[in-house]
């Protein structure tokens, strides 16, 4: 899919969520689903397998998210999967999240940690990242055990890496 098509789908998701008044919640759920999609080979294979009919793939999404996400989120993901664009789901969702943050004049800050951050930590981290980047940020946290410890924050093209994984990789590289 080219950049224009991705942008088109992202705009459609954004407009639907905004029209339904669930933009913040849908944006957050879509972001989490995109990260799960990236980290799960099984889910990715199931949703991109051409041998499985689109209706079956949509049923998989509904079974997976039913009761765990808002109906808007499930419908939007199901729409993308039904149109055969499952492979581009992370890119579409990331573009949609950027658009949503941009609408609020915010920059998206993707934060990966090994353990979940408390609300207080998220607030202080948001302020710290805004102070460091000079932009108000919309914090998107992802619990990613592969970072081992610490935090890895990405704001646009800026990466602030304080993860144990990166330190270990640097140590391994030096060795």
């Amino acid at each position: 899919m080219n950049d224009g098509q991705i942008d088109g789908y992202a705009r459609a998701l954004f407009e639907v969520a905004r029209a339904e008044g669930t933009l913040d919640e849908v944006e957050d759920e879509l972001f989490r689903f995109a990260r799960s999609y990236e980290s799960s080979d099984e889910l990715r294979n199931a949703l991109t397998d051409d041998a499985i009919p689109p209706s079956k793939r949509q049923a998989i999404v509904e079974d997976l998210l039913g009761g765990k996400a808002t109906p808007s989120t499930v419908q939007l993901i199901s729409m993308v999967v039904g149109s055969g664009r499952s492979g581009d789901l992370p890119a579409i969702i990331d573009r949609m999240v950027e658009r949503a943050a941009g609408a609020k004049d915010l920059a998206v800050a993707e934060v990966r940690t090994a353990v979940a951050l408390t609300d207080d930590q998220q607030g202080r981290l948001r302020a710290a990242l805004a102070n460091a980047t000079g932009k108000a940020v919309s914090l998107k946290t992802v619990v990613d055990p592969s970072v081992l410890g610490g935090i890895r924050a990405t704001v646009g093209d800026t990466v602030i890496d304080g993860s144990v994984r990166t330190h270990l990789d640097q140590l391994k590289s030096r060795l």
Partner: protein
Amino acid sequence: MKLFSGMLVATEEGVEATESHHWLWPEGYEIAFGGIASIIIFALLFWKVGPLVKKAMAARTQRVQDELDTAAADQSAADAEAQQILAAKGDIGAERSRLLADADTRAEALVVEGRARLDQEIAELHAKADADMAAVMNRGSDELRAEIARLASEAAEQLVTGGLDEAAHQDLIESFIQRVGASS
């Protein structure tokens, strides 16, 4: 013998024998007639047979001279041929010497070339062996270093992850927030 036998027979048969005045010398008239007859015979011989003899002798002399000339010519031809053979022999000897010298030169060149090639091949084999040995040593060293690094990194990871309890996680998060907040 017959004369003596005849004299004996005549004596025995009573025939009258005549005696000369000397038992050795003939009679004078016999000498005179004999001498004249001899002179006549010799003159006739000199007159009639002499030219024939002289002609025959001249012919014989000429024949001998011809044979001598032919022999001399043959000898000259033989000498010339011998010279040619000797010259040819000399040429053959020179050619043989040249061929031998050429063969020696080529053999020497082949030996030198072969020795040089052999030296070069030996040098190349030495160089290749040295390179192989160095490569093996480097590979072994690299593999050893990589293995040590792998083991060290695994040990470090196990040490770090084993020591990451909840308090450590919170310390890392707080440290990150403070560090990022302090930077601007």
